[in-house]
């Protein structure tokens, strides 16, 4: 597995982490009602979306490099 392939695995893990942290923040918001937690949740979801976009751009730019 090349660095390119491992980087995609890493980006996928990061997206999942951001979604998880976002869900955790939303659960905290529902429990305590703090609006900062809701903002934090939105930020996490935004980061997750940003990472997905980055992953696609990365794939497009490095398409000439092997996955092996």
């Amino acid at each position, binding site marked *: 597995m090349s660095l390119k392939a*491992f980087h995609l695995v*890493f980006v996928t893990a*990061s997206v999942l*982490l951001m979604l998880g942290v976002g869900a955790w923040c939303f659960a905290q918001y529902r429990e305590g009602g703090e609006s900062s937690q809701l903002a934090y949740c939105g930020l996490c979801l935004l980061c997750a979306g940003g990472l997905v976009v980055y992953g696609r751009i990365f794939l497009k730019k490095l398409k000439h*490099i092997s996955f*092996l």
Partner: protein
Amino acid sequence: MEIPYTVKPRPDTGLYNAKVGIWLFLASEVMLFGALFSSYILLRVGAPDGFWPDVATGWPHGLLNIPIGTFNTAVLIISSVTVVMAWAALKQGDFSKFRRFMLVTLGCALGFLCIKTYEYNEKFTHYVIRMKDGTAVTGHLDINGHSPRFWTLATITDKKMTSVKVHVDVPNQFRYPVGMKRPEVSHEAGEHGGGEHAAREIKTADITFLQAFVPATGTFFAIYFTMTFLHGLHVFGGAMVLGYFTFFGRKMYESDPERMTNRIEVGGLFWHFVDLVWIFLFPVMYLL
């Protein structure tokens, strides 16, 4: 003697030797961290009531600084992006671009370690105090205006102090083991503005346990410090290797650019592994 297959793939594996080597090494690292994560799960699940903080309802949220942990996660994600960009720059034959991206990676590594040091220091000056009446508080000791590290009840007794001033966390975020009473804390008595911390004088005679958040404090902090320190060592080691290639790699790049590019790929694979470990460590230690 020339080292074989540093650039060309070995016919039987289809990969150059260093790549096979790093993956074997990373497999051993997976076993090391896997064993520690397994230990964490077994300790947490198997802890008897009262020995694990808030074993009945969950994890002691608030004892670790979540915003700082999140920031550190972002720092490591950025460093992974820049290390790949550095490798891609070498593939395109642009050494100065490689160096720029690598300097950002090294900056992120340094930033991560500095923030972790700050976090550790914060824990070493943060205390849990249990009283004879069964109550417990967490907070910072105030000894003539400064907050000491690593004190215990024995330290206070040795210094013949009759009482200690404590800036109690408000709201007290420590979730108490089953059967331990939560103390009443005044929100108006804060000294750090906005009622953030309530100053309280506690008599030494009333204290049964006083300790900073160090590995000896409990199972959680023992495994927290073990895993995060081991991870920090990996960050340090990875930064040393990448730093060496950044500052002393030009000669090799000029004589054998493909070999240098492969070395950066191997370094980048290790760096990604270290960052991936943190992606698992962060939610496990800070959130769950």
